[in-house]
């Protein structure tokens, strides 16, 4: 069991088994969370990880900058340790950016097209 603390919901704590993605484990315990595609492709359920570690290798929605900013796709992510999150659109301050004003560096693209710095 891992403890999941929701910082922007008065530090409410949930216990999860890790057998299902965080979205379904937390929703089944009554936490109201946004979601869309439920397969890791659409970013609607993104939350910001403040502490802890997750496995979200099956997500395909986030680019590397969003991952580096702590975003987690809850519909496919599972907790590997105790975690603290901010949830909902209040946590999306760094999720969206104007792509013309603030372009991505090659290593910040999505994993399938990112050019890692070490390979340059």
């Amino acid at each position, binding site marked *: 069991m891992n403890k999941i603390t929701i910082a922007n919901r008065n530090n409410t704590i949930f216990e999860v088994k890790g057998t299902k993605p965080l979205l379904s484990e937390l929703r089944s315990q009554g936490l109201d969370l946004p979601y*869309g595609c439920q397969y890791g492709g*659409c970013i609607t359920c993104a939350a910001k990880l403040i502490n802890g570690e997750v496995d979200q290798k099956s997500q395909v929605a986030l680019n590397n900058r969003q991952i580096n900013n702590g975003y987690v796709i809850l519909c496919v992510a599972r907790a590997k340790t105790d975690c603290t999150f901010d949830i909902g659109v209040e946590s999306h301050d760094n999720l969206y950016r104007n*792509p013309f004003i603030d372009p991505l560096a*090659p290593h910040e693209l999505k994993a399938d097209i990112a050019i890692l710095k070490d390979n340059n």
Partner: protein
Amino acid sequence: MDGLCCGPGYASPSEAVRATREKLLYTIAIYTGTGIQKPDYLATIDVDPESQNYSQVIHRLEMPGIGDELHHMGWNACSSCHGDEKMTRKYLLVPGVRSNNIYVIDTATNPHAPSLHKVVDGAKIKSKTNLSGPHTVHCLGSEIIISFLGDAKGEAPGGYLHLNKEFEIVGRWENSMGDIPFSYDFWYQPRHNVMVSSEWAAPNTFMPGFDLEEVGHLKYGRRLHIWDFEKKKPIETMYLGEDGLIPLEVKFMHDPNSSHGFCGAALSANVIHFWKSKDGKWEWEKIIDIDNEPHPDWPIPVPGVMSALLVSMDDKYLYINNWLHGDMRQYNISDPHNPMLTGQIWMGGLLGKAPVVNGVKVAGGPQMYQLSLDGKRMYVTTSLFSTWDNQFYPEIRTEGGVMVMIDCDVENGGMEINKDFILDFGKEPNGPSRCHESRYPGGDCTSDIWL
């Protein structure tokens, strides 16, 4: 037709132009991606100027769950089965781009308060047809095809779902996707045995938002595809290159004998005109090129983002939008090779030309629009797609979408914002929602196709 039958729609485009004026409008409004934990809904809007509820939402049909992202929709039947008196234009099919569900909504039992008739389950569509990311709905005689942008895992190119008239899954419509890399919109013109499809991107690419770099990595489209409609397979590709980056909406002329059609390339902000030449060859040309505009906060000029396009029922005018600039334009296309700009209005946008319309602050820019059959009234909304809205117009979260009505001069050309009509979706009972596509119960300028 002889006037003794008939099924839905009209015998011809010229008959449609003379139809009764619309009194109701069905418009999609979304909460997906807004932070409000409520279902998306279909709003019924009173557009009868004689009514005391004119310019108001009079009914809201909530979907059963949250997170669909309702987007485009279409009718179960249109003028393509005008000769079939057993058919009626009764049901709106409303897909959820993110959930993959297709909602079949009964608008005939009580046109003011539509009700949910059936849900075609998104998971079942995935398991039976390996499709996700539904977009354009067209009826096909009495049956229905819907373009999907991805496979069950959200990867391109997707394909076409075929539903029968009971809204049961028949399977995939197409016999082959050929080497098509992406899907999006489509329109067909049966007398030329042709369908034309365009390219957005894979759901996994566009759903999370727009990374400009992915255009360079060929994750977004730049082609149009010509299909053998009867054989249900693509036969030719038009490579548009830099002139046609992200080609979105495709429309043929309404005259069923015409082979002329148009596509708006969103990122290039160009209109592509295509037609069949006298020797039977499909040709294309760029006929409208909207210049990028300088902006004090942008390192590069702002592209128009021409996300939609519409042809009036009499085939005289082409309408386009520039979502980031904030303008709508009307072109006379009597000569489709040489469009003439005849009207323009501003509402919202990033260039600051019209931040307030009829007393309402406009978050977003002109994005989706529907034109009355007589061509005189155009209803325009401001939201594109929740994640893209959040990138370019973050204030739309708290301000919601807006619907504006434009009076269009069909005789001499010209557009003017109607001063008596405004609908502020920022004031919806559950909080600011975002309005998107609209349809009229009696048919409109993006629904009907003639066999």
